Every structure is written in structure tokens, then in C-alpha cells.
């Protein structure tokens, strides 16, 4: 023991805080969300498997060309990618968040020092990663089995990028927003699935959009999926096909505007209606 007397100093924390910084927290949360997603067989099959199976079925049934040199797959892939993006964001969140809310997962997070935004960041990271994986899988299958032609210009790839990013953002925000409608864990899919299915049928995913009745086209034009499909058609179909669109061109500016408006609507709904606890919890 030392006999030297030292002035009593307040004991300061010797060890540096082990808590991660902002980015670290978000990445950890994202990693956890992805891990939970991948381990949940039903969500992997439903989310990633559904678009893949649809491509396999539809591209095998309709193997003719819709125009000289343009296969049906070339048209169908756009709807499938858009559907896939909506599934991993809108449906995935709209179904899983009520389950987590019901299980008390959200309540438990709120009881920790975790900043609220970190939880949302984790969901967004999970959606982004699964979106990229799903799109890559769809493209790989379509290229190898159904002779899909990938976009050949940088502009087309850029369009592909922003349409997907904006579409996923809008669908993510709407998915989080609609999650608050479900009263119980089980009702999440009852709320979300009909919305998603109807949108798929009226937005030109399974049928050529311009063959649909015009009232149906107009209803579809109010929602994001139709514009995601249209934006992706600009990427995968020859430019001349733009003339067949309802607006006489692919209308990329309008695609951007409508999707951006849905981002704002979704965000406002999230901020005003999001619930961390179930209704019976108050």
C-alpha cells in the first residue's frame, strides 16, 4: 500500500464508454433486423420467394415475344421487381411491425436508452439490403433462364437506381404507417395483403397496364406501385415503348413527383400515427 497522500479526486469513469456511436448503433440494429429476417423462414419464403416463384411461373407460361426482339419477360420483370420492392418494404413492415408490437418488442426497446430513430434505421437497413438481394436474384434468374436483356446504358442504370430507391422509400414509410392500423399481431397481414394484391392487379404487374379499363388505370395512378412499374419499364423496355404508355411517354418526371409525394404522405402518417404499444397497453 502506498502512503503517499494524494488529493481526493473524483473518480472518473476509467473505461471509455462501450456504447457505439450513432452510425454504430444503426448498423448494429440493422444487422439484428437482417438476422431476425433471415432466420424467420416464413418471411424469407414469403418475401424473397414469392416474386421469384411468380417470375418462374409467368415467364415459363408466356414465352412469346410482345414485339420483335422484346420478350414477355422483358415486360414482366419490371412488374415483378416493383412487386418485390413493395413486398420487402410495405408488406414486410406492415405485417411484422404489428407482430413485434404485440409481442412487446417495441415497448421493450422504448424502455432502453436506444434513441427512437435507431429502431427505424434498423428497419430501413433491413429493407434496403433485402431489396438489393431480391432485385439481384430476380435479375439473375431472368437472365439465366429467360434471356432477359439487362439495361445497357448508364442512364438506364441510374434510372433503375432512383426509381427503386424512391419506390422503396415510399413503400417503407407507408408500411410503417399502415402497421399502426392493425390491432393485433395477426391482423397485420389481413390489413396489408389485400391492399398489396389489389394494387398488383390494377398497376400493370400481371397484365399490360394499358389493356386495363381506364377507370382502373386512373385508380392505380393514385398509388405508388403503378409509377414504380412505369419507371422500371423505362429501364427495361426500348424507348419506343414509351409511346404506348397512357401519357405517351414513360413520364419519368411524373414518376419522381408521385413517388416523392407518397414519401411525404408516408412520413407524415408515420410521425403522427406511429404507436410503440398496442391499444390495450394504452
Amino acid at each position: 500500500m502506498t502512503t503517499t497522500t494524494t488529493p481526493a479526486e473524483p473518480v472518473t469513469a476509467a473505461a471509455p464508454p462501450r456504447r457505439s456511436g450513432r452510425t454504430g448503433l444503426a448498423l448494429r440494429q440493422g444487422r439484428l433486423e437482417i438476422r431476425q429476417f433471415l432466420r424467420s423462414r416464413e418471411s424469407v419464403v414469403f418475401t424473397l420467394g414469392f416474386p421469384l416463384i411468380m417470375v418462374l411461373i409467368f415467364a415459363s407460361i408466356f414465352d412469346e415475344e410482345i414485339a420483335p426482339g422484346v420478350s414477355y419477360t422483358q415486360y414482366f420483370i419490371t412488374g415483378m421487381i416493383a412487386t418485390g420492392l413493395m413486398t420487402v418494404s410495405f408488406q414486410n413492415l406492415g405485417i411484422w411491425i404489428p407482430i413485434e408490437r404485440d409481442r412487446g418488442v417495441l415497448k421493450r426497446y422504448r424502455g432502453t436508452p436506444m434513441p427512437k430513430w435507431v429502431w427505424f434505421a434498423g428497419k430501413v437497413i433491413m429493407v434496403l439490403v433485402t431489396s438489393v438481394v431480391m432485385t439481384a436474384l430476380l435479375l439473375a434468374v431472368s437472365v439465366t433462364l429467360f434471356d432477359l436483356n439487362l439495361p445497357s446504358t448508364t442512364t438506364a442504370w441510374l434510372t433503375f437506381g432512383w426509381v427503386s430507391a424512391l419506390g422503396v422509400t415510399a413503400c417503407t414509410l407507408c408500411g410503417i404507417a399502415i402497421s399502426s392500423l392493425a390491432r393485433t399481431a395477426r391482423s397485420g397481414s389481413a390489413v396489408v395483403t389485400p391492399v398489396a394484391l389489389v394494387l398488383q392487379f390494377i398497376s400493370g404487374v400481371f397484365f399490360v397496364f394499358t389493356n386495363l379499363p381506364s377507370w382502373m388505370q386512373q385508380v392505380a395512378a393514385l398509388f405508388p406501385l403503378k409509377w414504380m412499374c412505369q419507371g422500371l419499364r423505362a429501364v427495361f423496355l426500348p424507348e419506343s415503348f414509351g409511346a404506348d404508355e397512357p401519357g405517351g411517354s414513360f413520364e419519368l418526371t411524373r414518376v419522381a413527383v408521385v413517388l416523392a409525394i407518397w414519401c411525404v404522405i408516408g412520413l407524415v402518417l408515420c410521425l403522427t400515427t406511429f404507436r410503440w404499444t398496442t391499444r390495450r397497453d394504452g
Partner: protein
Amino acid sequence: MTRRTLDGMSDDVAIRVRGLRKTYGDSPAVAGLDLDVHRGEVFALLGPNGAGKTTTVEILEGYRQRDAGEVRVLDVDPAHPTRDWRERVGIVFQGTGEFDELCVAEVVHHFAGFYADADDPDKVIERVGLSAKARARTHTLSGGQKRRLDVALGIVGRPELLFLDEPTTGFDPEARREFWELIRDLAAAGTTIVLTTHYLDEAEALADRVGVIAGGRLVEVAAPNRLGNRQEALATVSWRTPDGTLDSAQSATPTALVAELAARFGGEVPGLTVTRPTLEDIYLTMIGHR
């Protein structure tokens, strides 16, 4: 992280509640509740379902907003919980099977990452007795093991104050005993503990003081053995009269009464019993069930 310095008043007061009110629709769940919990004590809130226990605790935890009253928890108004305050408050929920896809170690490690001053997650897992299950998916745990995981998540941030909501509901007797040991360990380490329970024996076994809630008010606060002036309560002496009927008398001096009865019967008193009210009798009287 440095602990905030506390002023003189709050040195020994962890929770201070005055005139707390909360109404749902027309029915008041909490109707003017006062409560003080001292630092380092184990305080049990006892009361029947619907008495306002959970509402009160959830207001203290920062989950519900109150309608009126003054509330300070570790010197912070829980209506506006800060991140720093969340660092110091641990909550053990009544949840089960929440992270079905993850294993015990993953969940505890993840939650430890939210705190600046977290405990070693592996040590916490050992402390709650889940080391053997560290690699097991949480949905494979038994009910008691899930509650241990709940506790692990509540204490991994090394809280100064720990809330436990009906912690042993659904436990078998052995699991309860083990759980009680864990709570005593935490209390011995200086953690302030507030627990709600239906079980009188649990309150008696763990709590330094018990608060009885009925009708949205705290009707009594006392050490478990002094609740309802139990130590001063009259003893009931009962015996069988020669014609076979049961007779009884309340007495502050039961020994003298028994001696008198013995003299009267000339030896053995038939069917003699001497009882004092149990904690349960007193509790049931307090909450108006007797």
C-alpha cells in the same frame, strides 16, 4: 458516463409521487396516489387487478402520461424521459418469447450495446442462471427461463432503479425461490427495486416496505410484518364448549385466556386454537374483500 450529482433531498429518495391521477374515460384508475420510495430499498406494490398498480408503475416508467400530480423518479419527471435517465432505470417486463429468432446471448449482447455503462453480458447471463442456455433460441426457453431473460435485459444496463412487474407469475415454487435469491442479490448490491405482485408471500419475502393499492389510492405503507398493525392485532382463541359448539373470543392477552380456560375445563381445552390474522387476512380487509 458520469452519474449526475444529486442534491440533498434526492440522496435518499428514488421515487416521489404526490397526488397522482389518471383517468380512462370515466373511470379513475389512479385517484390521488402519494408514494415515496427510498434509495436502496425493495418496495412492493400489492393490490388486486384493476387497483391501479400497473397504471402507476407505467407512469413511473415513462410509458404513460398522467392527468395530474407530481412525479419524480431519480430526480426526473418520467413524463419526459431522457436518454440519460433511461440509462439509470431498468425495467423487467412481463413479456415472453419476444425475440423468437434470436438466441439468449444475442439478445443480451444487443441490449447491452444500448447502454454507455453496461455490465458484461456474459456475466449477466450467468447471474440470472442462463449460461447453459446462452446459445438457445429464446422461443425454446421455459416460462421461468424466459423471465430470467427478461431480468437479464432489465439489469444489463446496471440500473440504479429496477422495476419488476409481477415477476414470478406462472413460476413453480422452486423457480420462485431461485428468483427471489436473484432479487435479494440485486438489492444487496444497492439497486432500488420496485416490484408489483399479487402474492403476499412474495411481498413478505422480498420487500422492506409494502404499499397496498386499492381503488387507485395507496391505502397503507408499512414493513410487511407491521402491515395493518398486524403485530398489535388481537389474537383469536377458540375452543369447543361441553355441548359441542364452537366458541371463540378475541383477546390482547391470549395466554391468560388460555390459562383461564384450562382452569375452567380442569385440564385439556377441547379443540383449542390460538390464531393471529395472517398477512392475507389483513390485506383482504384492506382492499375491502372482508
